[in-house]
């Protein structure tokens, strides 16, 4: 059993609070990603879990036991850092065997374990090679093998894929997920890349400015983000936001000239109840924001001008300025054969159920229509 509980963790560096009362419950065998921009406190949190840093307040518990004073070497955790420091003077085999030899495991057993983990990571063909001759991509796998072979119950990874080229990152993401599913280690994975977090984790802890924003499954974080920050941070291209005010069943959107959106009969009562202040932010994701003419089903009278588009092969991203605000860029994800003309004016086409409604002053989600 290897569950991790963080209870109101605090870490300060001088006057700056790097982690501000973080509480997190990571269950046995879970893959949890700590996600956020640079400086949000994710690495500091990881370092407190590992024991490299001592918390100023709060506790780190493994299986109910408080670990605050336990040195990192005795916590039974495996590490994988961004700069993985493979021993260049040893062969790949000896690199991987290193941790097992320190633990005084028998040679036969070491051989079995090393070969098994090399098979999992597809580096069996490299075992006799001197580590100094490895490509960056292969070094990555050796570092991973070295951490995994000691079978730690808890695995801590800090942006392990960021030095890899895009092609290998794609492959390694799937491999990592599969391996963790097979081995069942509780894994904490720090990253600033939301694609990695979404694809790998059972749960994501989103952090910003030392504070936990939301802790939930990828699906819930994507579909029910707690606030504007989370909604904007997850999803690529990023979500579209419209400023507006609400009165008597209608949203008035300031980014559009004459931008009015009437709430459906089914939802009007709920919106009336839940919208307290007048100022709101409406959100809609690019894959739900389509473009068309004013006669299309689900067309609105909101108009925007095409300013650019990205044909990505599998889809086309269209960039537009709303007709009331040329300082705002809207993104619409259309089919790969969609070819707009720069300067065309389009009507925004979307269903009410795909809208998110946020309170402007608190930035919190009021609700997601259609949920």
């Amino acid at each position, binding site marked *: 059993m290897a569950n991790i509980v963080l209870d109101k963790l605090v870490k300060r560096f001088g006057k700056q609070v790097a982690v501000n009362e973080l509480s997190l419950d990571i269950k046995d065998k879970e893959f949890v990603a700590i996600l956020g921009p640079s400086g949000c406190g994710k690495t500091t949190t990881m370092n407190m879990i590992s024991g490299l840093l001592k918390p100023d307040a709060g506790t780190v518990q493994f299986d109910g036991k408080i670990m605050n004073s336990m040195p990192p070497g005795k916590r039974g955790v495996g590490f994988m850092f961004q700069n993985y420091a493979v021993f260049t003077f040893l062969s790949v085999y000896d690199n991987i065997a290193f941790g097992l030899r320190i633990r005084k495991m028998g040679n036969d057993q070491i051989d079995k374990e090393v070969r098994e983990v090399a098979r999992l990571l597809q580096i069996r063909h490299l075992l006799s090679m001197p580590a100094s001759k490895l490509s960056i991509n292969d070094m990555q796998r050796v570092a991973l093998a070295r951490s995994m072979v000691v079978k730690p119950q808890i695995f801590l990874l800090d942006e392990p894929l960021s030095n890899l080229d895009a092609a290998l990152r794609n492959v390694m993401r799937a491999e990592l997920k599969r391996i963790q599913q097979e081995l069942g280690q509780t894994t904490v994975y720090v990253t600033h890349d939301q694609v990695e977090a979404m694809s790998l984790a059972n749960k994501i802890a989103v952090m910003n400015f030392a504070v936990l924003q939301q802790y939930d499954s990828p699906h819930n974080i994507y579909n029910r983000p707690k606030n504007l920050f989370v909604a904007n941070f997850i999803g690529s291209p990023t979500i579209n936001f419209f400023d507006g005010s609400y009165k008597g069943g209608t949203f008035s959107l300031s980014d559009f000239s004459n931008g009015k959106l009437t709430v459906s009969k089914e939802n009007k009562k709920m919106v009336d109840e839940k919208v307290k202040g007048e100022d709101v932010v409406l959100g809609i994701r690019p894959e739900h924001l389509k473009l068309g003419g004013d006669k299309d089903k689900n067309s609105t009278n909101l108009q925007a001008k095409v300013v650019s588009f990205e044909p*990505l092969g599998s889809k086309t991203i269209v960039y537009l300025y709303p007709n009331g605000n040329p300082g705002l*860029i809207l993104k619409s994800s259309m089919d790969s054969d969609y070819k707009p003309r720069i300067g065309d004016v389009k009507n925004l086409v979307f269903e009410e159920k795909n809208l998110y409604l946020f309170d402007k002053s608190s930035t919190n989600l009021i609700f997601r229509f259609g949920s």
Partner: protein
Amino acid sequence: MASIRLNNVTKTFKNTTAVNNVNLVIADSEFFCILGPPGAGKTTLLRLIVGLENPDDGDILIGEESVTNIHPSKRDIAMIFQNLALYPDKTVFENIAFPLKQQEVPADEIEKRVTDVAKQLKVDWLLEKLPSQLSGGERQRVAIGRAIVRQPKAYLMDEPLSNLDALLRLEMRVALKELQTNLKETFVYVTHDQVEALSMGDRIAVLNEGVLQQVDDPSTIYRSPNNMFVATILGNPPMNFLQCSLKRDNGSVMLEHQTFKLQSDNKEVLGLLNTGNDSGNVVLGLRPEDINIHHAQPKEKSIQAQIYVIEPLGSETIVDIKIGENVIKVLAESDFSGVSNQGVWITFNSHKLHLFDNESHKCVYHASEKSKFEIV
């Protein structure tokens, strides 16, 4: 406004051929992207056009005039570097005005041209500031302004956006593309980012290890890559490759994988097998978005497989599928659900597959509406 032509240009450094017999024509007023991985030779190519390097072989022409022996300062090309190189002790106005002062343009004309360009790039309210007081995006625009004000024959940019954060990169991409459309000038834009190349280029030159792989518009390169390298460099997730063998079977051709068989009666495909040779190994290429997953066995012929792992990305889901010994990636809808090792069935868009030669990796066949393979 000018075209740029490279004829048989080669450049070698010690033991490395950085640019290998490149033949390229960049049309007047084109937004031309040079795409390739680090070390491909893109920067060297740019430096050869500007004149900071001299070719060991071949000729470079700007506007149909040979410039191979002409000093960079006289080629009338503006280059924007990754690190911008703004003069830190000069104001925005002085930075943009600098090339005009060098050319001894009269002061009132300088005033007009600099102010016009600054307005165009929305930095006119920053004219008295120093570079250190500007944001990354503003500095970027000042560097571009300094290039525009010279009214050069062409603009060369070497990964100008790679130091910017994601949001700013997007805004600058849109701004640069808009600018080029308005200016109608030749832009040569080097990048390792395939999304940038696909979204900005009128045409893209794909470069690898100094050798030109393919030059075409983005759509053609994506749909009809010349070889496996080009097929991989565009598209995310990249194209899947499967080892197969091609066999003649009476009047048809069979494409066989460890776990499935495809068949085609098309004459073009029959021609792939050399006379006297009834079989050969090929590599089958299929893009993730051209493969469909079904939870239940569909009516049409399909291939059995298992889910290896699922990667939910929010707007869509990548499903890694095990077919025999291979794992391939498939793009599925965002609400796709399943578990590892679950059995699924695969079909694909039969007019979208590609076949590559096993040794040379060159593309030997692109399927189309008229010529396709069907699952047997």
